[in-house]
């Protein structure tokens, strides 16, 4: 009877997880979907707690209470701009749990395990351990205590491939000798090291792909745990998360016109060298820098503005000021829309969340495909802290390293304002012709303070 109850809760939880994710296909149903998923998780936990094997509760309850407190605090106190790093560290916690379950399972049963179970445990350790250290590295890079530019060294790819081969070798050895504790430990160590080395050469702009990939690995680790301990709800939830992360990483790679392997094996590190040769020389061209007052006058009388936010907006936490500027333009009868490149920011959908935080209604936020035709009708395109995703070289310059990457066609707007900290090239280290366009006016400075001044200046117009 009890077993049927447990299996019933797991079954219900699996269905609720799927329904929950389905809710996310529209913002109108998303919160209902979240409630489904939460109920599913609650059911799965309750179902597990009545498990006959569980005989002592002190540790469990203590850990759950402490974990809930930490989880709530982390999520409530954190500013929305920090969502990418929070996601990274959360992947790490999930993976630690999966790996620990694997270690316990192996400690208890070790040599008696079947080939199937040891194989599942091996996958669990491999994906879980890569996710632990990989997510921690991503967290460090996003938080800024690990340098964000790609860290490269000689023989990087060969040594990574060697490490990967060693890990696969240990994995196979373990399958044939389930009792080989040292192989198990070495596999764990090699996977932990691989997580560090995979993320080292990855730069800030590639973070959306890496976070998606780690999301996927965290799910696969959970699914492997399920296979190892014969638990369907773990298998299903893990498979859902695994495919979700996988779908997102493919979308992100496409948005950068790069393959998975290209992102993972640090191709941008190599391209930076080429970029110096390819990037057009800046020397003989002039940049038109404009004053805030002139920009304010122009924005005050404009009819149609498209705002293009990028990571720079997140860095200076300028989303509220962006909204205020949009309000000021709308008050004077202008129309404002927002154009979001899929890889703007540091994780999929990063910009959308920040704009939503600033109360920008989501029906004014457009994806790249939906808005690209619109730029030619826009009076002003206002670029806030975005660079490579608006670089026309991706469309026009066959020699450019980012040639072929889909971009927002900002250069088709009648006037372009670019808010930018300085003339540093973007992440890819490529000159951006947009900044030298005769239609472009540059507004140098911190996005937040520039926008504040713009809003103030518009009041005086």
């Amino acid at each position, binding site marked *: 009877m009890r077993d049927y109850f447990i299996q019933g809760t797991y079954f219900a939880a699996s269905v609720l997880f799927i329904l929950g994710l*389905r809710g*996310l*296909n529209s*913002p109108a149903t*998303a*919160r209902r979907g*979240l409630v489904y998923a939460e109920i599913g*998780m609650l059911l799965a*936990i309750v179902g*597990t707690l009545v*498990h006959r094997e*569980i*005989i002592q*509760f002190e*540790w469990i309850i*203590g*850990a*759950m209470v402490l*974990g809930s407190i*930490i*989880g*709530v605090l982390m*999520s409530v106190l*954190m500013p929305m701009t920090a969502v990418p790093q*929070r996601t990274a560290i*959360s992947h790490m*916690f*999930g993976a630690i*749990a999966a790996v*620990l*379950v694997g270690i316990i399972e192996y*400690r208890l049963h070790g040599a008696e395990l*079947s*080939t*199937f179970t040891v194989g599942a445990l091996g996958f669990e350790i491999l994906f879980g351990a890569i996710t632990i250290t990989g997510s921690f590295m991503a967290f460090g890079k996003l938080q800024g205590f690990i340098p964000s530019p790609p860290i490269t060294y000689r023989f990087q790819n060969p040594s990574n491939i060697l490490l990967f081969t060693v890990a696969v070798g240990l994995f196979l050895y373990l399958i044939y000798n389930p009792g080989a504790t040292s192989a198990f430990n070495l596999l764990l160590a090699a996977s932990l090291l691989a997580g560090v080395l995979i993320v080292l050469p990855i730069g800030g702009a590639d973070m959306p792909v890496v976070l998606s990939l780690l*999301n996927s690995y965290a*799910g696969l*680790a959970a699914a492997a*745990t*399920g*296979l190892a301990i*014969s*638990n*369907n*709800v*773990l298998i299903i*939830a*893990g*498979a*859902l*998360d695994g495919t979700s992360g996988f779908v997102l990483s493919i979308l992100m790679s496409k948005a950068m016109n790069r393959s998975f392997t290209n992102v993972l094996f640090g191709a941008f590190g190599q391209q930076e060298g080429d970029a110096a040769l390819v990037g057009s020389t800046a020397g003989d061209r002039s940049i038109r820098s404009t004053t805030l007052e002139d920009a304010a006058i122009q924005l005050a009388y404009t009819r149609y503005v498209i705002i293009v936010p990028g990571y720079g907006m997140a860095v200076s936490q300028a989303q509220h000021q962006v909204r205020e500027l949009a309000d000021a333009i709308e008050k004077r009868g202008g129309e404002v829309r927002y154009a979001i490149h899929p890889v703007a920011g540091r*994780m*999929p*959908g990063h910009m*959308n969340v920040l704009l*939503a935080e600033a109360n920008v*209604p*989501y*029906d004014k936020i457009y*994806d790249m495909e939906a808005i690209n035709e619109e730029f030619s009708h826009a009076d002003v395109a206002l670029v806030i802290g975005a660079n490579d995703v608006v670089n026309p070289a991706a469309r026009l310059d066959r020699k450019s390293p980012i040639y072929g990457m889909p971009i927002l066609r900002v250069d088709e707007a009648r006037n372009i304002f670019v808010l930018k900290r300085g003339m540093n090239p973007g992440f890819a280290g490529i000159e951006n012709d947009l900044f030298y366009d005769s239609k472009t006016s540059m507004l140098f400075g911190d996005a937040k303070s520039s926008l504040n001044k713009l809003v103030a200046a518009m009041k005086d117009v």
Partner: protein
Amino acid sequence: MTTATLSQMLQLYVFVLAGFVGYQVISKVPPLLHTPLMSMTNAISGISLVGSLVAAGSGHDQTSTILGATAVLCATINVVGGFVITDRMLRMFKRSDRRQS
């Protein structure tokens, strides 16, 4: 050394089919909601909590219990934190007609 049992083979079916369902469902999520999607799937993948609970509560030996309790702690942070932040994000998404002033 034993090979996979029939029920273990069935688990592989479950895994693959759930993956296909996931693919279909996730492909329909608009880019607008990609960040909440990631934090929600992240919370769901904290389902390792289920395995951690059994490991921590079975009273095997001291080491297993401590490792298990650590797993419960981490998985709970993952689950609770993931759901709370997803809720915080989804709360913010509004249409223009509902906007004040």
